[in-house]
């Protein structure tokens, strides 16, 4: 019994711990602030430990990201349902867009501006963009983590990137 516990913790170390930072980053982008991401990460980690034996090998990063992603969405459904809206308020983006009509960076090295623009995207577009651009996941991997078909991943990315550029003129 005691050996099995050690084994579970060891598996947790091998499978989950290397991806805690990536998991936190995803939670942080989905939820929008550190405090909520903190809560979700703890819940997701417990869930990962609980179901660690169901991980039979394969992509451990995708496995952990899926758990955190689902835990984040459950949390939003329970606490901030409005944030799950897909409404794209195009007008809102005009003062935080990052690429102008000549596709030049509106302001170079302005991380904050870029971050703000991404944070304003509806959550389903934001998560796909974050998984692609920050985590470097392929369309197939994004589809596996989010449960969204590859075609939809593609169109969401196109839409998200379009929203991040200057809407004026």
């Amino acid at each position, binding site marked *: 019994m005691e050996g099995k516990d050690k084994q579970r913790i060891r598996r947790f170390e091998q499978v989950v711990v*290397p991806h805690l930072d990536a998991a936190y*980053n995803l939670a942080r982008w989905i939820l929008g602030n550190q405090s909520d991401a903190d809560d979700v*990460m703890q819940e997701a980690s417990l869930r990962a430990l609980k179901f660690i034996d169901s991980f039979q090998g394969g992509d451990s990063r995708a496995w952990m990201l899926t758990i955190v992603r689902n835990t984040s969405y459950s949390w939003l459904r329970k606490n901030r349902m409005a944030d799950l809206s897909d409404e794209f308020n195009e007008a809102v983006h005009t003062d935080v867009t990052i690429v102008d009509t000549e596709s*030049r960076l509106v302001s170079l090295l302005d*991380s904050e501006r*870029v971050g703000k623009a991404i944070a304003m995207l509806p959550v389903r577009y934001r998560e796909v963009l974050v998984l692609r651009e920050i985590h470097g996941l392929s369309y197939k991997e994004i589809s596996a983590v989010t449960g969204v078909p590859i075609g939809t991943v*593609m169109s969401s990315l*196109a839409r998200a*990137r379009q929203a991040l550029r200057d809407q004026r003129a």
Partner: protein
Amino acid sequence: MGCKLGRNLLHAYLDGELSLERALDVEEHLAICQSCSSEESYGRGVRAAIQRSNLFYQMPESLEEKVFILAAGERLSKRPSRYHHWIWALAGAGVTAILLVIFFTMSQPVAVSSVQDVVANHIRSLMLNHLTDVVSSERHNAKPWFNGKVEFAPPV
């Protein structure tokens, strides 16, 4: 878009998701289609802007520690109460032993003042991007807590 290429395919091209053959088709098309070409250019600009920005949120250390302690506590707390006392002692000794072994296999000279520090070090050592972390040696007054409490010869 007014063009048969389609925006989605363009973005798949930008993300390197197309086969070589299809990618070449897209490039051929971009050479002759103004609207797709400028869409592609926008896409590149947006991607470049994102890549230049440091948008990766690092997990706070306090959360790292919470997660590990939660995990250890969660497993150890689900014990049948009949064996409550000696299982706890054994588990505690087991965890202590693991932590001590980990501690001794680390080559950094550190002054550790709590279980939490050792746990945090352990977590850090597992994480590639923390390999260069050095625990601060500000705690001059703290005795290494393992002194004189070792009951077995740690592997050297």
